């Protein structure tokens, strides 16, 4: 990472805030209508985000790897995985495109192996085990009504949603079909909660930008 002297950072601070405010207004101007100012801000954002990713990956991952591991620690053989990784750039060359499959195959294999260990199974099994809860909760202070209701709702939902996904409408007919409808309502409620939380995140995004405009830029509060 390039280190900029503190005095330069302090001197550029007002410009930095103004640029941030103008970019924010530019992005928000889309809400009024499509316009060149919005396009300019959008393309600048995409371009700078791409450049930042490239520079940060090089500075934080590739450079220290070469500098420390290979040059200082003398682990020259680490050039081999780098060469393997570079083979991916043969992909557009028709004659040698098969070489690009080597790093891709290795990477997919590594992740498949990683995923098939107990690392993945343990959280899943824990969640299954913790899905079985007592319907009556007795604590040191006596019967816990709310915890009991929570457990009953939780276990009933788990079972009914499983019923929804395991059995089809052809199997569950007549009165049993009611189970399917109840399960569907429960799934819709859960999805609704997820959607509501997603909406709250969007509200937070707006709050963040308004806070920047009012506090950092205009200094209202």
């Amino acid at each position: 990472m390039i280190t900029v002297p503190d005095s330069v950072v302090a001197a550029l601070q007002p410009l930095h805030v103004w640029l941030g405010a103008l970019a924010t207004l530019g992005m928000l101007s889309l809400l009024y209508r499509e316009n060149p100012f919005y396009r300019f801000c959008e393309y600048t954002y995409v371009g700078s985000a791409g450049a930042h990713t490239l520079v940060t990956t090089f500075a934080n991952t590739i450079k220290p790897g070469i500098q420390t591991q290979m040059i200082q620690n003398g682990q020259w053989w680490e050039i081999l995985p780098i060469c393997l990784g570079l083979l991916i750039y043969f992909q557009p060359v028709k004659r040698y495109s098969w070489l690009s499959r080597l790093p891709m195959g290795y990477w997919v294999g590594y992740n498949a192996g990683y995923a098939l260990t107990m690392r993945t199974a343990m959280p899943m099994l824990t969640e299954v085990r913790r899905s079985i809860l007592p319907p009556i909760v007795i604590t040191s202070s006596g019967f816990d009504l709310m915890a009991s209701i929570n457990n009953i709702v939780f276990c009933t939902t788990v079972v009914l949603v499983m019923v929804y996904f395991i059995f089809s409408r052809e199997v569950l007919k007549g009165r049993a079909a009611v189970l399917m409808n109840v399960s569907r309502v429960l799934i819709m409620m859960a999805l609704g909660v997820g959607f509501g939380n997603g909406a709250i995140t969007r509200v937070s995004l707006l709050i963040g930008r308004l806070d920047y405009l009012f506090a950092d830029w205009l200094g209202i509060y």
Partner: protein
Amino acid sequence: MENTIWHRLSKLDHRIIYLVYTIVVAFPLIFGLGLPLPITDDVRAAYEVIKGLPPGSIMYLGCDLGATNLAECKPPIVAICKFAYELGHKIVVSGFWVDGPSLAYIWMEPAMNEIGAVYGEDYVNLGYRASMSSILDQSRYSIIEAFSDRDINGNRLSEMPIFQNLAKASEFTYLVTINPGYPGTADYIRAWRSTGDVSLIIDVPTAGMITTNGTHLQAGLTQGMIGGLNGAAQFEALIGYPAKATASMDAQGVGIFIIIAFLVLGNISFIQLRKQNELTKGGS
């Protein structure tokens, strides 16, 4: 028929809705309303876990986030770091979202300088690294090797006092993961919880991830959750440090109320128009 209030509502210019919404959200942001903020069990559990750890504990702070998560992620990062430092904990920051550690660096520096924390001794930022699974896996044997002995600014980790008592992931007392999605909590659980290296995990998701990550908390894979801006505000209240999250909560509350109001109005308008159309058809 065309001039009824419901008809006019259905044809309302969306820009008016945006304008009304912005003004209504801005008002409590500037003036504050002091709406009540109840503390939930999830946030209290996170607070109790951190508070119960002895001085000298080491926190791994996974900042897997982007610039768009500023409003939801900056307040908990600042609050958790301040609280941890006051308790005498050491902080190691990293992340596998390219912007995450850099943003954490920018957000943390003023707060840590203000309370007198020393970089390299009380806290360190390892910076972004590509390939989360392999880095976390290698950290189980040697953090310094996994991060190529370099922090975010290119300084040697092996020369920092914080790394004199910290060699591998199992020496982290607890893990705090701040993330709006993937990679995030599930990946840390797979990498360090499943292997038994780190058993205490505090989850700090954005509001959109609360439902998904709630399953980890329910299963006991994480020990507490500080979810979204609301969770951050609750945490600020618990540690007695009201800051940005607390100030933003009034605006969020009003913002949600306005969305619900618009939803109700939109649906009433839709039902009324449908009734009117049926009446018109029946009449003709």
